[in-house]
């Protein structure tokens, strides 16, 4: 309002234009509130008070009813709560959808949708939406944004942001009459009264603004366009290193020389052998590394390991396997245990654990029902058929040859792999491998072979499903 604008002349806002309100100035908040009370009592409805700071009790004095904003915010907050929960359910726990697929990933056996984990996100979304609803709802209810107000043309009104208080009676009010209202305002203690006339200036938005607005809207398209451009692009430059000392850490890796504590000419290393990392003290075994029991850790009866090559059954990975991934008769095998070692107790919980681990590690190739129809296997078989890959099809666990294998042999397959199947002993703890073995045996006992049979079995016993 402090702008000296060429329109700010009495020509367009002069007495010839329509009177829209009377503006009365007061010197302190108490007299403003008192005047508001009098105006309300005199029956004025359309009026407003302006002050440099919030005045307690002014709402009641000018008789404005309580704002509807809280209900609006409550509704938005509840909606945001539902939206946030549905969003998280949608992206985490669904796989198929008409527009975008969700990300139904099993991660470390965690549940797909779990309320405690979703509450922080829900909470933040509620808070953000409520804040926006409050802020923009206030704009809407106050008729904002408003680019110009005729009151701002009154020089007297400029002190409203500084030290003066104003009561504005609008001409639209039923009780309003110019002379009587002016008299009343004087009665109520107004220090100065001015008329506010209709603003007759051109109210069209200047062309420049329109152009800038259009340019801005187009500029908004830039970020998505750039994202679209870089998606799926191949870069030939080395990647940007934002934190170099994290990417190239000043540290000693295993199998490297240790720190030189001498001079460059005559190096002396921290350890006598110069290694950065020392080998275990001879005659000791690290905690958890003691694997004495052959039955439990390797699945065969103690002392039955053939001494042909001085290596365990894992040596068969290299050679000595036929097309089916079965060990050929030429490689001698130890005597596999045909029961579970005494360290494990097979019960319902153990089988549940085995099922869960099976569904994390095994189903990709062997399928949920163990018939070898896992997604990876299907794809690999298709690729192999097209001559694009070499692949030995994953075994069906219901194959009579597999069913006939002793328990220890299945355990050994999980631990050390066979044919295309890699070893899992480094990824799955030994107890879990036995749990998977037990679950495989349970699967075999069901005799399920086809997805149709699985579906039937599921409908019969819901617990057997996922």
């Amino acid at each position, binding site marked *: 309002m402090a702008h000296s604008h060429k329109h700010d002349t009495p020509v367009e806002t002069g007495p010839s234009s329509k009177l829209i309100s009377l503006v009365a100035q007061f010197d302190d908040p108490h007299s403003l509130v008192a005047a508001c009370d009098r105006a309300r009592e005199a029956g004025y409805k359309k009026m407003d008070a302006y002050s440099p700071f919030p005045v*307690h009790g002014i709402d009641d004095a000018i008789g404005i009813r309580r704002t509807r904003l809280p209900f609006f915010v*409550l509704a938005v907050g509840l909606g945001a709560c539902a939206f946030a929960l549905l969003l998280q359910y949608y992206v985490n726990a669904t796989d198929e959808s008409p527009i975008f697929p969700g990300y139904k990933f099993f991660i470390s056996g965690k549940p797909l949708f779990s309320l*405690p984990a979703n*509450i*922080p996100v829900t909470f933040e979304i509620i808070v953000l939406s409520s804040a926006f609803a409050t802020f923009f709802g206030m704009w809407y209810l106050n008729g904002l944004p408003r680019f110009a107000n005729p009151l701002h043309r009154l020089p007297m009104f400029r002190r409203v942001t500084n030290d003066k208080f104003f009561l504005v009676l609008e001409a639209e009010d039923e009780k309003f009459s110019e002379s009587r209202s002016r008299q009343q305002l004087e009665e109520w203690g107004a220090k100065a009264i001015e008329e506010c006339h209709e603003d007759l200036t051109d109210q069209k938005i200047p062309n420049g603004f329109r152009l800038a607005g259009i340019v801005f809207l187009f500029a908004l398209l830039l970020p998505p366009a750039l994202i679209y451009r870089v998606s799926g692009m191949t870069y030939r430059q080395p990647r940007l290193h934002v934190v170099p000392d994290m990417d190239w850490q000043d540290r000693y890796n295993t199998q490297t020389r240790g720190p030189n504590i001498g001079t460059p000419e005559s190096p002396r290393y921290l350890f006598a052998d110069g290694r950065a990392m020392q080998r275990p003290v001879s005659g000791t075994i690290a905690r958890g590394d003691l694997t004495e029991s052959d039955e439990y850790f390797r699945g065969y009866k103690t002392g039955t390991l053939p001494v042909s090559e001085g290596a365990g059954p894992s040596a068969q990975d290299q050679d000595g396997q036929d097309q089916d991934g079965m060990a050929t008769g030429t490689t001698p095998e130890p005597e596999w245990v045909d029961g579970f070692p005494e360290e494990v107790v097979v019960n319902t919980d153990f089988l549940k654990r085995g099922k869960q681990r099976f569904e994390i590690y095994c189903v990709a190739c062997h399928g949920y029902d163990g018939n070898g129809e896992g997604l990876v296997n299907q794809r690999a078989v298709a690729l192999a058929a097209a001559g694009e890959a070499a692949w030995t099809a994953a075994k069906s666990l219901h194959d009579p040859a597999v069913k006939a294998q002793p328990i220890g042999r299945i355990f050994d397959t999980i631990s050390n792999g066979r044919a295309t199947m890699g070893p899992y002993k480094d990824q799955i703890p030994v107890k879990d491998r036995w749990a998977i073995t037990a679950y495989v045996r349970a699967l075999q006992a069901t005799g399920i072979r086809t997805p149709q049979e699985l579906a039937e079995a599921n409908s019969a016993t819901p617990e057997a499903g996922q």
Partner: protein
Amino acid sequence: MHARRPGKITSPIVSLSTSYVKLVPLGLVIGAIGLGLAYFMSLPQGGLKRFSYSYLVTYCSLLSMSLGCLFFVTVQHLTRAGWSVTVRRIAEIFAMCLIPMFVLFLPILLPVLMQRDDVYQWVNAGWLAGDREMFREIKNAYLNPSWFGIRIVAYFVIWGMMAYSFFGKSLKQDKTADPTLSRTMQKSATWKMIIFAATLVFASFDMEMSLSPRWFSTMFPVYFFAGGVMSAMAAIILTAALLQRSGRVTDEITVEHYHDLAKLTFGFIFFWGYIAFSQFMLIWYANLPEETFWYRFRMGDSASPGWIFWSLLLLFGHLLIPFLAMMARTVRRNKTYLLFATIFILCMHWVDHFWIIMPQLNIEMGATDVLGGDPANNPLPFSWLIDVPCAIGMVGIYVALFSGIAADRPLVPLHDPRLEESLNYRNA
């Protein structure tokens, strides 16, 4: 325009007058009957141990509430608040109850000093046998009877001095009308607040968290504090409403004060929920066995599956229902409604402390293995004939303390320099 009230007290009665002569013995008799019945009924069910746990539940509820009032008084001076002057005296009296509450803690403290491990298992120095030596040394350096006793005495000395300093100066101002006393209290509120925070943190560790001495959570003191302040606000509202119903301080405490106190109650209900969930979620997500066992027992995956219902009772009764019920402006300005709401909130505050403390009794009296055992042999330790009379008796004693301290002293500050501001205070 509403006429501006002068800063003068206009109510005909501003003190308990002679009623305290009746209230004090009445409270003590209720206390004696309640505690006596509770103790008698606990004899066949674990004797002193059972009784002490029940006693500790109500004690900690009332203690955290009194500390909440002490916080309220301190923060009003700290922020130079004008609106709260007429309700501050009630909080000052509640805070003064901290002094006699030291005596009420003796039934817990003395057995500890006599090396009895009825309540705190760490009293028995062998409780960590089989653990690593370093762990044992660290734990035993902090958790041992003599150091515990010293700390408890220190807390009560500090709280007592704080409460007495505010109460005494405020009473002195009633007589002398000296406005500089307000300035003195305002200045001292700064460092008092810091000391208050430090003592409250360790008191909550000592009194409640050390019941399960292997468990630790740095969020626990905040949890204790949030529940305490929430109950303090509810207690001030309830006391003011009851005083006004009996015709006292009718003119000074207006609906605007109820409105503001209810806003604070509402805020602290949610703050409690926020802290409770933060504590739970970090432990739940990190899933470390040394932390999760505390929650796992309370979530019903235990020898005593009934605890899940207490946990859900807290979730709904302490957070969701009061949150929605205290949300609307109209209900915050309705005294009758607030009377019932605050009683409900105070009961939930007791449930909160029951939920913190009692599972430990379950663990110690039932199966030694936390996650084993037969629920039939290890029922939920709630008894209508032990816990309820014990709570009623303790509240009786507390009412006697309040009445004795209030006596015929004014229940509003008579000459506070901001009294006029408070009397004319209006919510926007």
